């Protein structure tokens, strides 16, 4: 029972973390945590809209989504891995592998785009299964396991393509010309439109809605979150913990390879360095997404918003003529702000069970 035996319908407001802060300041903090990110994103967009006429064109607004799509989709995979309490560092490598695998399938093996897509998705699932085996069966901590997979997959990619970028009709080692090329249908993935909307933006919307629906509305999403919140409690509530953790890594691998498909179609060749920067961006947007809206749990819309914010910054700053490395500084600042929101300022969901949020009113 709480102290409110005399007034049994109310409980004390969740007390603060031991320090005494005025209610007004508390409220301001709460607003900052909940809406800070959205405010910053809107302010940035507003600033670019007013100061850069080119930013205003509808092409460019779709361009933002097209640019954000690979990062956001890989970030949604990381988000799923994070719901089970894990982290997937192999997404960048998996996406890079997907780029080379797609090129190799079409150019060297002379297959059509559809086959390449199937092979790439299968490859992503296998990478996810390897991660699952290392984390769930071999019980290697997730960071170390996926780091290992990252190295192995990056190496495997170079083995597959002999360390070279693969382009249509390239000359092979034996002097002959490669039989295949990037098919039109495959390139449509990045360059086509459905009505007025570019295909990558449509794809991003589909994946985002699917991940949101899975995580927020279905039983399976609920169980993924349960595993991440307290695996032992989930096990003792009848959740097959190993199965859900494995599924999370497989989904993460598959979404990373979808991101790789978009990159391959955008570049139009099997660039061996593609996907290298995707890891940091994808993990960063998933972490930013955790703090957006102050929910403090990994979630689909947060991740998409994080990716859009990063893409607004990159596109806007390059219009302003800032060099690309300044963008990295800006991304770092955004990530730092997100982590401060999640770990330092937020009071939600950081309380351990059994310790009433304040550790105070027992």
């Amino acid at each position, binding site marked *: *029972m709480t102290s409110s035996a005399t007034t049994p*319908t109310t409980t004390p407001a969740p*007390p603060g973390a031991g320090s005494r802060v005025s209610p007004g300041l508390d409220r301001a903090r709460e607003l900052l945590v909940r809406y800070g990110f959205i405010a910053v994103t809107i302010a940035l967009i507003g600033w670019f809209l007013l100061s850069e006429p080119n930013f205003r064109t509808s092409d460019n607004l779709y361009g933002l989504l097209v640019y954000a799509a690979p990062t956001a989709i890989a970030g949604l995979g990381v988000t799923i891995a994070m719901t089970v309490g894990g982290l997937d560092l192999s997404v960048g490598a998996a996406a890079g592998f997907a780029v080379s695998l797609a090129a190799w399938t079409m150019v060297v093996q002379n297959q059509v785009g559809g086959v390449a897509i199937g092979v790439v998705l299968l490859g992503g699932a296998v990478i996810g299964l390897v991660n699952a085996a290392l984390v769930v069966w071999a019980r290697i901590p997730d960071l170390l396991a996926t780091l290992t997979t990252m190295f192995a997959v990056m190496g495997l990619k170079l083995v597959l393509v002999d360390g070279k970028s693969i382009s249509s009709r390239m000359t092979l080692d034996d002097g002959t010309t490669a039989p295949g090329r990037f098919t039109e249908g495959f390139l449509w993935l990045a360059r086509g439109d459905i009505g007025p909307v570019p295909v990558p933006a449509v794809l991003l919307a589909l994946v985002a809605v699917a991940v949101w629906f899975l995580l927020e509305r279905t039983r399976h999403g609920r*169980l993924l979150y349960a595993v991440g919140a307290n695996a032992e409690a989930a096990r003792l509530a009848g959740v097959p913990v190993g199965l859900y953790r494995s599924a999370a890594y497989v989904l993460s691998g598959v979404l990373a390879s979808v991101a790789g498909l978009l990159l391959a179609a955008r570049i139009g060749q099997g660039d061996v360095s593609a996907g290298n920067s995707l890891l940091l961006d994808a993990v960063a947007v998933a972490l930013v997404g955790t703090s957006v809206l102050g929910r403090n*749990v990994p979630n689909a819309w947060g991740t998409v918003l994080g990716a859009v914010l990063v893409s607004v910054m990159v596109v806007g700053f390059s219009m302003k003529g800032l060099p690309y490395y300044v963008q990295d500084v800006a991304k770092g600042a955004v990530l730092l702000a997100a982590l401060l929101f999640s770990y330092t300022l937020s009071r939600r969901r950081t309380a351990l069970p059994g310790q009433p949020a304040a550790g105070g009113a*027992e």
Partner: protein
Amino acid sequence: MSTAAVSLRGIGMSFGAHRVLDGVDLDIAAGEVLALLGANGAGKSTLIKVLSGVHPGHDGTIAVAGTEQRMDSPLRARRAGIATVHQRVHDGVVPGLTVAENLAFDDLAHPARRGPSSVLLRRREVMAAARTAVEVLGLDWSDAVLRRDVAELGISDAQLLVLARALVHRPRLLVLDEPTSALSAAEAERLFTVVRAQREAGLAVLYVSHRLGEVDALADRAVVLRDGRVTSDSRAPFRWDVVLPAMLGERAAAHPVGADGIGPPPREALPPGEVAVRLRGVRLLPRSPALDLDLHAGQVTGVVGLLGAGKSELAHGLFGSASWAGGTAELDGRPHAPRSPAAAVRAGVHLVPEDRAGQALLPGWSIARTLSLPFLGELSRGGVVDRSTEGARGRSAVDRFGVVTRSEHTDVGELSGGNQQKVVVGRWLVPGVRVLLLDEPFRGVDLGARRDIGGHARDAARAGAAVVVLSADVDEVLEVADRVLVLVDGAVTLDAPVSGVPRETVVAAFSATSPGGTPS
């Protein structure tokens, strides 16, 4: 005993708009064991934190031996002469260090001497400091024990270690927060012996417990805290019929006590129904004898045993979350060998695990979500969770179990311990439960919540379930059970209807063979 060892004047503490402590005046004399009583949420823990320097922002003053002291940090509090042993023993030991290093830890962390020599870790000095610490307690720990990794100590020895560490600085006041919550009766008795010896040596002790039997056995004086104020202050022998209403307020009427003033009101015994669970040749522990046991529907079976006697093994074996060293089980005449908790739940076997925070609660989850987690299958259509039904079920459970909360969507972490426990127990108390296993369901729960939870367990039995309550506390089991089993080292040493067996017989059955004092 003329000047108080520690005196508090007007201690107050607020969290936001909530006044947790409201003008507490208290004197604790040297050589006195003062019991601090109160329901969950009465402000006990906050008062302890004020005393131990965790809440520097409190109102009022604290004087130690007549001198006013400011407790701005745990270190300051310790130096002022107030040593605190917190409820969670494992917060007091540093894993990876030896027993000796743990005993000498305060010295390692804040060395008395300065300069380069304080940087070096000198094994011989650490051993000497550790030996002094155990001698203060009168423990006979050998050097071999002191050199062990602290993780090898059992919980009872870890508790004594933490106590020794607190006493090594010769404090004026020792604060013990529920020191026996994880100990068996025999282990608790060992702790009491130490506390009594310290009292003779002139130490003031502030003793917080929910167990009134302990207070009777140990305390000279008892103070009751309610809604942040002192509502009762009396000397031994205590009259519980007076003290309990001061503690529980009007709720005391809803939870009447028996003629002895402590025990539960008289209740009808439930006769054994048909056999629900039949165990044959089950070995709970690797070296324990094969056990044949029938558990009946329609009544509450209480299983009493020490930590490690096989209680949790019995429960987890039936729940599919661990396997026995051998033997078979039947549920209603059919073989019962669940491969996972999910299979056990499908068969109608539910388990409330003993560690609420570690095994049952999910940080950041609402009451409704916590309640629905095991039953999402039946709450979903085509994999989509029906959230309105989920909310309705949460609301009705909150009402049925009397959970004090704003709404069923409140984060479980914001509830008091007793209310959290009601959620955790209530989750499994659903229609259709066949076997309900409750492992230490009353741990860290006040008397009112304990009666509520016990009552619901009996209701489930009355509705036809086989209810099993497992506990290290004899009184908790006698209060709720119809049949009592005593488990020692995986063997049943007593099996009797509660109505026909005196408490002493039960205690004798399981404390006779309890292990002695050295760590194992």
